[in-house]
């Protein structure tokens, strides 16, 4: 869940009133946000780096607000305020307007076919006559970072570049070139670098190094030029220094490049809808013509408004409420979904604005109605669904058996299903290749290399960690192990195992043997070669020579034991 950090004072100023922390927490809760923390820069620094380091840092109060992962329209102060103000019916939802310049006057972005193999999609738009202040500018930069980290999947799907349009001249070209042919002065550097030099430069950069892998091994790197050959950006790594924006920038060229067209369009829509608020004509965006390699042209941003129809009784039935159509329409309008009743009250027409890319089905509309209605105002009822309960036979047996094992004086252990290869192979004197173990591809530590194929290592480790306890230790576990099995749809399966260990100064074979006899008695398997169980001497790599037996039940070999 992304967390947005906003200055409390600015937030209240924008909301036109102040709240106590508790009141604001309550408002967040109702709206589906979470006021995660009330803090300050000073607090954050002293928590992370120690109190001494925080000296001089700002103690302006910050709200850290958790935002649902699909609400890109709430990732900045502007969007949060707009969402909450509409929710509280203090403002009407603005209508975002796309201004298409007269023929020949608008900006163009030409995509060349070389981009196809590395980063095929690009969209763009212009924010005209914008007025930045320090706070607005910071929020603009923060929003891009939030989008990069979330919907853009750390720039893998989409990367955003914003440029001072007055420093560059269109038409712009989005192309891909051999790294050595790309040379420009990257953002906030004092000299020019070639692309390979930049990769070296950023290898140690705490922020940018995470994105290098996205293009590093490609033969061509994506790059955007203006008509004079000035580099705007080398997405998804870095912008050029030449076109960087600052507080005095009046016209911003926004480009989004990526591998996922749908998300690139959403990201562009999000940025321009949020910040067009500060344009001379608020909520207007100047369109850019994007020319594809095949010659086709598209106009961006899309800023598409979509209409959906949902029946009032559908909403009422899904939520368990009984609101009138007009009141439902009003509830939806409070969620930035402008709605009105049509067709003699039989239907509600809902307009999905470009900021609400998360609304993809009627169920999303139903949820918004519920949020505006207030989840906690919905009458709780018990469904009339009549069913007879059944236990899973395997779990039922497990529950019964573990009670009787405890009654037999053994204590239940609960150990991890994941372990190291060593635990199930080397340490038991067997080779890992003979275990049929399931192997994990991306373990962070050796503790998570494989799923256990036997419960024994876990019990032995439990004993090792409890050597201070008085003897004897009598432990058991009934749980699942995992082995490969090509006959299963996923190629592996669980088996339910029972393992018991007796630990004392003398071996006490008769004690563990006695437990086996007891378990068999509980399972109604008599000691008998023909129709019951027997144990037969064997050798096991984990066991002392001559001190290991196998259990056979009705001539099926179960498991070696000591």
């Amino acid at each position: 869940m992304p967390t947005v950090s906003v200055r409390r004072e600015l937030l209240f100023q924008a909301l036109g009133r102040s709240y106590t922390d508790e009141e604001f927490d309550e408002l967040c809760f109702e709206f589906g946000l979470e006021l995660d923390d009330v803090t300050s820069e000073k607090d954050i620094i002293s928590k992370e780096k120690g109190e001494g380091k925080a000296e001089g840092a700002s103690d302006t109060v910050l709200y850290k607000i958790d935002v649902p992962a699909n609400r890109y329209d709430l990732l900045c102060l502007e969007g949060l305020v707009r969402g909450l103000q509409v929710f509280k019916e203090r403002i009407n939802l603005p209508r975002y307007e796309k201004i298409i310049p007269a023929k020949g006057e608008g900006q163009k972005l030409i995509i060349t076919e070389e981009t196809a193999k590395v980063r095929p999609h690009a969209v763009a738009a212009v924010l005209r006559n914008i007025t930045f202040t320090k706070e607005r500018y910071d929020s603009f930069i923060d929003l891009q970072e939030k989008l990069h980290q979330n919907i853009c999947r750390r720039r893998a799907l989409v990367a955003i570049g914003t440029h001072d349009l007055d420093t560059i001249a269109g038409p712009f070209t989005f192309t891909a070139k051999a790294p050595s042919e790309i040379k420009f002065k990257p953002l906030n550097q004092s000299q020019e670098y070639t692309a390979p030099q930049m990769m070296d430069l950023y290898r140690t950069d705490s922020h940018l190094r995470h994105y290098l892998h996205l293009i590093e091994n490609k033969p061509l790197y994506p790059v955007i030029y203006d008509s004079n050959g000035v580099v705007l950006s080398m997405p998804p790594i870095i912008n050029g220094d030449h076109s960087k924006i600052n507080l005095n920038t009046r016209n911003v060229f926004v480009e989004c490049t990526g591998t996922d067209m749908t998300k690139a369009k959403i990201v562009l829509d999000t940025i321009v809808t949020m910040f067009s608020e500060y344009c001379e004509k608020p909520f207007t965006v100047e369109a850019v013509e994007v020319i594809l390699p095949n010659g086709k042209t598209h106009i961006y941003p899309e800023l598409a408004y979509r209409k959906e129809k949902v029946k009032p009784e559908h909403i009422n039935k899904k939520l368990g409420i009984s609101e009138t159509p007009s009141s439902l329409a009003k509830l939806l309008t409070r969620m930035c979904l402008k709605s009105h009743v049509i067709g003699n009250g039989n239907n509600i027409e809902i307009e999905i604005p470009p900021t609400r890319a998360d609304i993809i089905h009627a169920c999303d509309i139903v949820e918004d109605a519920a949020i505006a209605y207030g989840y906690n105002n919905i009458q709780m009822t018990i469904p009339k669904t009549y069913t007879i309960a059944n236990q899973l036979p395997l779990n039922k047996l497990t529950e019964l058996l573990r009670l009787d094992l405890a009654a037999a004086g053994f204590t239940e252990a609960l150990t991890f299903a994941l372990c190291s290869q060593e635990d199930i192979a080397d340490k038991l004197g067997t080779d890992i290749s003979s275990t049929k173990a399931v192997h994990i591809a991306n373990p962070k530590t050796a503790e998570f290399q494989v799923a256990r194929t036997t419960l024994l290592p876990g019990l032995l480790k439990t004993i090792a960690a409890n050597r201070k306890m008085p003897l004897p230790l009598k432990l058991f576990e009934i749980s699942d192990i995992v082995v490969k099995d090509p006959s299963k749809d996923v190629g592996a399966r669980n088996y339910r195992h029972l393992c018991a260990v007796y630990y004392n100064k003398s071996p006490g074979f008769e004690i563990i043997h006695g437990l086996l006899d007891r378990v068999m008695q509980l399972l109604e398997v008599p000691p008998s070669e023909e129709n019951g169980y027997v144990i037969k001497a064997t050798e096991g790599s984990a066991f002392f020579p001559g001190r290991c037996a196998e259990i056979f039940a009705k001539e099926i070999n179960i498991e070696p034991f000591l």
Partner: protein
Amino acid sequence: MSPSVAELLLQRLEREPPGPGGGLCSLEAAAALGLDHQTLVGAVKSLQALGEVIEAEARAATRWELSEEGAEVLRAGSPEVRLFRSLPPEGLPHSDAMKLPGAQVGFSKAMANKWLRLDKAAPGGPRVFRAVEAVQDAVQDGLRRVQEGDAAALPERERNELKRRKLLLEVTLKSYWIRKGRAFSTAVARQETDLTPEMIATGSWRQLPFKPYNFSALGLPPSCGHLHPLLKVRSQLRQIFLEMGFTEMPTDNFVESSFWNFDALFQPQQHPARDQHDTFFLQDPAEAPELPASYMAKVKKVHSQGGYGSQGYKYEWKVEEARKNLLRTHTTSASARALYHLACQEKFTPVKYFSIDRVFRNESLDATHLAEFHQVEGVVADRGLTLGHLMGTLREFFTKLGITKLRFKPAYNPYTEPSMEVFSYHEGLKKWVEVGNSGVFRPELLLPMGLPENVSVIAWGLSLERPTMIKYGINNIRELVGHRVNLQMVYDSPLCRLDT
């Protein structure tokens, strides 16, 4: 028969006048009787147990004693004096002087006392000479006075110095001041500890005095096995679901395909949860050999193009992603399988399902997160279920868990809409804490399976560990799960009664 220690003590005590004036010190009595003090204390305790025969008041006294090293100094003199005395009048090279008795400890002391002189410029290297004619061994004298029982006469400064040099030890002595009790008597009847069959047979128990039981002591713990506290909570949760008419789903496959874990749940292939950082993918078997082909085609379509009233996610859905095997990140994958199974039935029947089993996350470990934990999940599928039904079901469920103060927060979940986080007011923490997650399954999940359009599925989930940690007051999850848990905690854990 020779008299017991207790009898000897009583005989001695008899000579003392009753009341506050008379009495014996246990230390003195032991010395007078030629007994070890501990033996006498044992007799005092056994007499106390008889009631009011004697009164004994515990006393503590401190005493100074010579340490082993102190005894050596008393015998042979302090190191500095021994060094001084063994140094010849013509002096010695420094290195030789350091080999003399007492030099290791005494040299610096003797120098500080200005008894010795070190000539660094002497021919043949630094040389040590006596600086005074004769010295007095004040350390040895001090120790002698302590030994003679005159420690109190020693100035405190001097005593502390000897203590600092570890020559003196301060010993605390525990003793008793023993007086006659109200029921004092020198003839102590032996009390019986246990009733025997013979006493009952002969009826002698009627005359015999019995030693009273010590009811303030704990009894003997029974030798027994114990159930693990987390699994005790699991049993109770199973019980709650069964009481509510929920049927248990099969969950015995830790290995799951991305298809069932994510795609079937309408979780897009670029979703962060499908990242290497969050999920354990498998190297072997890396891919699921078998996926349900016709159902998968519908899942592919709803992701990439939409359908069933949905816009879809509009991206290129890849079967290779769906085949990737992993360790299931939630038991909702098992719920998806169960619902698909239900949809494949000829005729839809309403169901209530539950499961409690392990799930796996490739997370950073800390006090509240492990790479594996147990998920508790409940699912109801029926025609016409509402959000109010979900909330009502949750209220009943959590009431059985002993959690009554609930409220619901809108949330986001890729596979449920509406989605709600369940919060409960924690009296201890004085705030609302999240206790579970819930929602109504999306139509994009249910309709491709083939469930009828008017069927709604409500579901909720929570971890088993969290309520267990709250129940048993455990702050660190590593003290609850895994091989490092302290078995004493398992031995000592009480019954799991959730609704009390």
